[in-house]
């Protein structure tokens, strides 16, 4: 028995992406045959627009050259469409008469452009804008004729008009609606767009209807007549009035179609489970998608099922649109028209030609329409997709991400364009601009994830993500946009962080294997991304009950020290509030000498770091430190790090309260607790703020009347200044608020999400509601925190000094 046979109909973007995904999962499973109507290997249809303008060439947009098919043993028939499917015999027949039998069939026939049934529609010189042949016809016409008419002022029509204009033609766009791109833009944005395009020499007839196309002497089209009588001369007419899913073949084969081929969440046709369909020819939950990002999502899911993994589900996508006209910035997503029950925030800056509109419903962004400055489009899109409450950001929202504390790097696009190829983009991994562009080009990368995997750029601290996205936009032509509607925790699962947490809680799951079994993990034992997350979620959900899984912790937390680049470890004992006695200093000095610490350094967190400790020596080092009264400083953990303090009223002439004493109390109440990410606090004795409390996860600024409490600050990769949570009068209140805030963070944040992005995601209003305004809620959070601390405040160093987890530190064997 040979391999099962997979036949693919349609050699386009969705079909071939599915095959690529399938080859990744199960390279040898199928004997694959592909039929394509066009005489080319698979190419990037999106980039037909820059090919038309002359910015790119046809060679540059080929995605899979012919030898790719050969290498993977794929039989490819180009220029030979399938004309018949015999479902009973499981055979397809091509126009040239080739028969191919299948065990699984994948339909990816895309769309057909709509041709208006006008008199003259079939004349020579009338084309659509869909494939290479169309572009070749347009380029040829631009050499011979001077005037063109584009029917349709939507995305494709405008890109066609822009391309023909760039090739020197006089172009008029005839559009039925009263403003351009009415499905993506509201009227004010469309007017700005129109003005820009008019400045480039494109003419418009809006609210205009074409009546007939007229033939010249040669029989080729020579003019377009509009209703009302106007006649526009034209040696070329482009019809760009929409697309229709290409379902002819499917219908003839008796597959249920309703505008598209109807598929379920596994992308199997509802009629015949042996037949899958992906791409623009599909109707999923009544929706048909005409952009590549959702189609690639579908491809992933279909491949997962074809590979017999059988777990992925496609549940639909939200999409965003950009126009690929060089120099025109336009971005639109969601319900950008607003209406009943919606609130609109609009910014107009006619001087700069900028227009921005956000549509909000119940404090959440539901639509965005941006013109002239689209830098924040992806950010709004993310807030929209995640359903974040933006009430607290409302006033600053329009000014963009750079103004909400996330002081990134300025305008990444402008910056990136000016950079030379040798410029370093990713400082963590030393990846420069030229390398990233080459990888995007040569490896055909489309998404941020792919660029990360191939180049490591943006794979570490992520602060260069904006720059990498800008490079992608530059290279791929502007629309690599849209991500899936939800982000899975990691590639081992299709559940999100929140869904996993809810399942642990609601279904009483109490171990990592139990979670993986119940939620149908795709890998036998997870990966370095999900295992630590699950370990934390279980620990947070079942304090005292869940047995920590050391093997699911990163080495630093497993060995209770920070691994260094030479494999040695660093040791940072806890120094409460930064206050240390001479006796303690002597004990640290003795340890440093006895175990030959290579360096002793005062850290940025008001304590002392001993570097270059051999792993085998750690338990002994800790035993000596324990004897002197020290506990672990958790400098290695997703846990409470430091509580920085200033001298405060004990010594300082400006001090209003005992900031040092309060810092120590806070540290003693909260140390040892495991959290989604590291957590830092500070207490300053007055608003001069010498302890930098306003860039901490939780910061206290003492004032004469009591204590100001601040949350969500970060001094790291992206500096974020705290938000003021509230003002309280007593130390006891400070501690209760701090613990309640920490507990809310522990219960709700995603693993590896620090408080700054968490606060931005859920909104300050939500945190105030739970921690400030509702005293019962605060009290309950506080109680739960105390409860979990009863099981957490054991010094891990002391336990190991007494012999715990000895295998972690001793070699298995030493051979001389």
């Amino acid at each position, binding site marked *: 028995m040979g391999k099962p046979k997979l036949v693919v109909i349609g050699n386009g973007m969705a079909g071939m992406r599915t095959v690529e995904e399938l080859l990744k999962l199960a390279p040898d499973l199928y004997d694959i045959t592909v039929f394509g109507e066009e005489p080319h290997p698979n190419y990037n249809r999106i980039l037909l627009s820059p090919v038309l303008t002359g910015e790119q060439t046809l060679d540059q947009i080929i995605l899979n050259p012919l030898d790719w098919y050969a290498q993977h043993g794929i039989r490819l028939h180009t220029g030979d469409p399938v004309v018949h499917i015999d479902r009973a015999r499981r055979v397809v027949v091509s126009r040239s008469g080739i028969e191919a039998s299948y065990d699984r069939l994948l339909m990816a026939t895309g769309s057909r452009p709509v041709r208006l049934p006008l008199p003259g529609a079939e004349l020579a010189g009338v084309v659509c804008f869909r494939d290479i042949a169309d572009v070749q016809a347009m380029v040829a016409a631009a050499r011979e004729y001077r005037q063109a008419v584009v029917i349709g002022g939507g995305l494709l029509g405008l890109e066609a008009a822009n391309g023909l204009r760039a090739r020197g033609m006089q172009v008029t766009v005839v559009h039925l609606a009263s403003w351009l791109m009415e499905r993506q833009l509201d009227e004010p944005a469309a007017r700005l767009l129109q003005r820009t395009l008019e400045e480039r020499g494109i003419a418009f007839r809006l609210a205009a209807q074409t009546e007939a196309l007229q033939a010249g002497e040669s029989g080729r089209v020579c003019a377009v007549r509009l209703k009302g009588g106007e006649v526009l001369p034209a040696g070329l007419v482009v019809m760009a009035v929409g697309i229709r899913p290409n379902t002819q073949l499917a219908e003839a084969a008796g597959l249920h179609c309703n505008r598209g081929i109807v598929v379920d969440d596994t992308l199997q046709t509802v009629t015949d489970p042996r037949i899958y369909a992906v791409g623009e020819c599909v109707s999923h939950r009544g929706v048909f998608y005409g952009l590549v990002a959702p189609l690639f999502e579908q491809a992933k899911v279909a491949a997962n099922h074809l590979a017999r993994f059988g777990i992925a589900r496609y549940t639909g996508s939200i999409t965003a649109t950009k126009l690929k006209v060089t120099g025109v910035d336009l971005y639109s997503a969601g319900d950008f028209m607003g209406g009943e029950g919606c609130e609109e925030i609009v910014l107009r800056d006619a001087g700069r030609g900028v227009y921005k509109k956000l549509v909000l419903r119940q404090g959440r962004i539901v639509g965005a329409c941006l013109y002239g400055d689209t830098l924040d489009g992806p950010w709004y899109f993310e807030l929209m997709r995640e359903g974040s409450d933006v009430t607290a950001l409302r006033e600053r929202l329009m000014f963009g991400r750079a103004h909400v504390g996330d002081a990134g790097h300025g305008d990444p696009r402008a910056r990136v364009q000016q950079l030379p190829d040798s410029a370093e983009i990713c400082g963590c*991994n030393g990846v420069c601009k030229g390398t990233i562009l080459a990888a995007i080009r040569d490896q055909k990368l489309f998404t941020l994830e792919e660029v990360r*995997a*191939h180049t490591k750029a943006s794979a*570490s601290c992520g602060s260069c993500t904006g720059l990498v996205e800008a490079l992608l936009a530059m290279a791929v032509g502007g629309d690599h946009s849209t991500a899936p509607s939800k982000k899975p925790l990691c590639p081992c699962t299709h559940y999100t962080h929140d869904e996993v947490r809810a399942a642990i809680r609601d279904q009483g799951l109490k171990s990592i294997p139990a979670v993986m079994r119940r939620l149908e993990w795709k*890998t*036998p*034992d*997870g*990966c*370095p991304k999900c*295992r*630590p997350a699950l370990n934390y979620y279980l620990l947070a959900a079942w304090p005292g009950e869940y047995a920590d899984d*050391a*093997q*699911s912790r*990163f*080495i630093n937390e497993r*060995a209770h020290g920070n*691994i260094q*680049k030479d*494999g040695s470890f660093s040791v940072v004992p806890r120094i409460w509030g930064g206050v240390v006695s001479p006796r303690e200093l002597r004990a640290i000095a003795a340890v440093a000498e006895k175990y030959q610490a290579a360096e002793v350094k005062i850290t940025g967190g008001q304590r002392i770091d001993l570097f270059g400790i051999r792993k085998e020596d750690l338990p002994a080092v800790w035993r000596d430190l324990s004897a002197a009264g020290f506990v672990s400083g958790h400098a290695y953990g997703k846990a409470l790090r430091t509580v920085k303090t200033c001298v405060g009223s004990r010594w300082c002439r400006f001090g209003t309260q005992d900031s040092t004493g309060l810092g120590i109390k806070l540290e003693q109440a909260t140390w040892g607790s495991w959290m989604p990410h590291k957590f830092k606090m500070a207490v300053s004795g007055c608003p001069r703020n010498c302890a930098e409390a306003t860039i901490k996860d939780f910061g206290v600024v003492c004032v004469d009347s009591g204590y100001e409490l601040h949350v969500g600050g970060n001094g790291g990769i992206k500096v974020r200044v705290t938000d003021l949570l509230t003002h309280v009068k007593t130390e006891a209140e400070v501690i209760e608020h701090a613990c309640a805030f920490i507990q809310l963070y522990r219960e709700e944040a995603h693993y590896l999400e620090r408080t700054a992005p968490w606060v931005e995601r859920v909104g300050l209003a939500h945190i105030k509601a739970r921690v400030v305004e509702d005293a019962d809620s605060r009290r309950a959070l506080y109680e739960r925190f105390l409860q979990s601390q009863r099981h957490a405040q054991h010094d891990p160093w002391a336990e190991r000094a007494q012999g715990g987890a000895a*295998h972690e530190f001793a*070699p*298995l*064997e*030493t*051979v*001389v």
Partner: protein
Amino acid sequence: MNAMTEGWLKIGRLHDVPRQGARVVRTAAGAIAVFRTHDDQVYALEDRCPHKGGPLSQGIVHGHRVACPLHDWRIDLESGQAVAPDVGCVARYPVRIIDGELWLQLNGAMLGGPTPAQGCRHD
């Protein structure tokens, strides 16, 4: 010494290595990491990441792979190869489990993948 144990060295018991974990064998020629996977397969690899020499024994073991603790390269335990798109590989040593005991063949270092075609790329 009989033929069976010739060149092979007893280094401990399977149970001495935590499941989804690793232990180190120190030798004159450097450290060797002995990994035990979730399904009790055992592999021995040079304890040096092909990237910048990170101690692989300290990484998170998942499936039949380990993630280097320093910069998260993934190394396939069976072939010693870095998982694409990273490129590089580490030496592997034969290990056997006999009656619950681990035997390591120190002079049996192998470079490269399971087939010659996948050989290690050294530059």
